[in-house]
């Protein structure tokens, strides 16, 4: 074997590219450009509508955080080559379980939450198990669970409580430490201080006169940030992350190389169910009750956020940061249209157009990265 030079050889067949261009080319680029565009647009068209005062910011941040929570799960699962249409139904179902356990059965709220998480991830595992065992497309399997879980979310409260909305969780959760973990707010002191100093608006009338209009950072947002960070580190920095890419890129090849593909996929289904349950728990704790119709269409919204964020629907390519930006864009647009006073039934039309535009942009970027195909 000829002696190999110890330095990497230059290849004359590569055009040189500027450092800047090199740095720009990453899966999140579409998300970054989108975010900038969207903010610029709304600053122009809705800058004076209150969208960017403290209350307005909190407003779209919460919506975006909701999307982020489910988008992280959907993103990792999609990169692993599958997707989950039962996310929305899972949100309804998990919320209902918490309400039934804590209100109807009177369990302490922390127990209700823990048991619900256990059940939800078990269902996620079942989803994954069926997919890897039968080799069926996840579209079909999770579509079945979309119906099954929604069916139970309606059937259970109706048979048990004879209603489809179960309230009273707020009372049950009073003083429960785990409930606070999902429904509470942090940094209230900071916000009070900001309000006292006049940096953020305070109430001018009503019962809470003098208090800052934004009380604190809701745990919903904390969860969203946490999940994004964890998801990002797992995906890009660990061995398991490499397996996720491999499982989604070509399951057969990955399996032949010794990647435990089935385990990876099942775990990702469980993680998606986990994220949906976080969403459901935050919602139940914030609104104090669960309804059978919670989470309708959320599976699509999660997938949309992920795809806007640059992931490939067919698996093997994507980024959690991108998905988070996708969720941010989605949330800002949705609320921004309201602030801008656009006829609200046109919202869907805009949503569709933005989705189309975003994916076309992303595809273009991906082609630039991997070379024309």
């Amino acid at each position: 074997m000829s002696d190999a030079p110890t330095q990497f050889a230059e290849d004359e067949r590569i055009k040189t590219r500027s450092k800047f261009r090199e740095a720009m080319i990453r899966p999140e680029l579409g998300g970054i450009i989108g975010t900038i565009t969207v903010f610029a647009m709304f600053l122009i068209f809705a800058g004076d509508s209150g969208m960017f005062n403290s209350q307005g910011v909190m407003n779209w941040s919460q919506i975006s955080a909701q999307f982020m929570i489910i988008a992280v799960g959907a993103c990792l699962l999609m990169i692993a080559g599958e997707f989950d249409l039962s996310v929305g139904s899972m949100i309804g179902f998990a919320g209902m379980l918490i309400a039934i356990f804590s209100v109807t059965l009177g369990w302490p709220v922390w127990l209700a939450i823990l048991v619900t998480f256990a059940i939800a991830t078990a269902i996620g595992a079942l989803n994954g198990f069926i997919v890897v065992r039968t080799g069926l497309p996840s579209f079909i399997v999770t579509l079945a669970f979309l119906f099954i879980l929604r069916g139970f979310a309606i059937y259970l409260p109706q048979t048990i409580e004879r209603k489809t909305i179960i309230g009273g969780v707020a009372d049950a959760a009073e003083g429960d430490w785990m409930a606070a973990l999902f429904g509470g707010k942090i940094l209230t002191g900071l916000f009070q201080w900001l309000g006292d100093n006049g940096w953020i608006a305070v109430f001018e009338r009503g019962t809470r006169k003098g208090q800052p209009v934004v009380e604190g950072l809701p745990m919903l947002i904390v969860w969203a940030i946490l999940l994004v960070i964890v998801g990002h580190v797992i995906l890009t920095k660990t061995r398991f992350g490499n397996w996720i890419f491999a499982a989604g890129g070509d399951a057969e090849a990955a399996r032949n190389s010794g990647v435990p593909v089935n385990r990876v996929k099942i775990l990702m289904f469980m993680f998606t169910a986990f994220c949906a349950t976080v969403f459901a728990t935050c919602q139940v704790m914030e609104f104090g009750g669960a309804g059978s119709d919670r989470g309708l269409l959320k599976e699509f919204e999660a997938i949309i956020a992920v795809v806007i964020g640059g992931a490939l629907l067919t698996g093997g390519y994507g980024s959690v940061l991108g998905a988070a930006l996708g969720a941010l864009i989605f949330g800002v647009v949705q609320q921004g249209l309201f602030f801008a006073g656009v006829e609200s039934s046109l919202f869907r039309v805009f949503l569709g157009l933005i989705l189309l535009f975003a994916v076309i942009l992303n595809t273009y970027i991906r082609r630039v990265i991997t070379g024309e195909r």
Partner: protein
Amino acid sequence: EGEKYILVSHAPDSDSWWNTIKNGIALAGEQMNVEVEYRNPPTGDLADMARIIEQAAASGPNGIITTLSDYDVLSGPIKAAVDSGVDVIIMNSGTPDQAREVGALMYVGQPEYDAGHAAGMRAKADGVGSFLCVNHYISSPSSTERCQGFADGLGVDLGDQMIDSGQDPAEIKNRVLAYLNTNPETDAILTLGPTSADPTLLALEENGMAGDIYFGTFDLGEEIVKGLKAGVINWGIDQQPFLQAYLPVVVLTNYHRYGVLPGNNINSGPGFVTKDGLEKVEEFAGEYR
């Protein structure tokens, strides 16, 4: 003994308000000792509902109780049912005239436009000049009628005072917040049921307008009752769904057993529920109220 009645609604199966209806027919069925069934199109598609009425007729019940939320779509199947010997009572939506038209025995319900109109008149008397209608079910005609009626009652143009809020509580809440943020001079809020009222309550609490802004709602629910009690909600329009479900079963049973029939339609609403006299409402909210 053992007559069979089928109630067909137009609501998608997650709609919480219809739960009271289910409980109402169940109770009536028990008390009158008849067999009752509840059916609805899972997605709320009225064309699917027409098929369900046809099917209900095919299964040979003694009577059908149904809503008439779109005359064009539903009149055909209802007429066919009547003609094939099934007695029909119209409940909830539609108008008494339409009920007569399709050959129904009677009408039990609350004409939506009129209810909205009455609410609008009341609000006008209380000095309201502009409002926000939080419509969580925009594709259903009756919900739009409520908003339209309210606007007409106030004597203002509906314009873009009605928002399509979606059904996710967080989205409803934040859209209400966004609207009030951009239109701070809004006088009143009208919600169309617990789905939109509950998050709206939280929204008002969060932006400090609770108790300050004029707040009316259709239909009752647990949280709405609490809001009424706390003085955040000024009034709720109660169309008493329980009666809409319970009475037709009783009427039909008695008609079939003894041939007796009330001579007129029954308006189950609108009744305005305010802070006063809430105990019973509170006890049974979401179940029978």
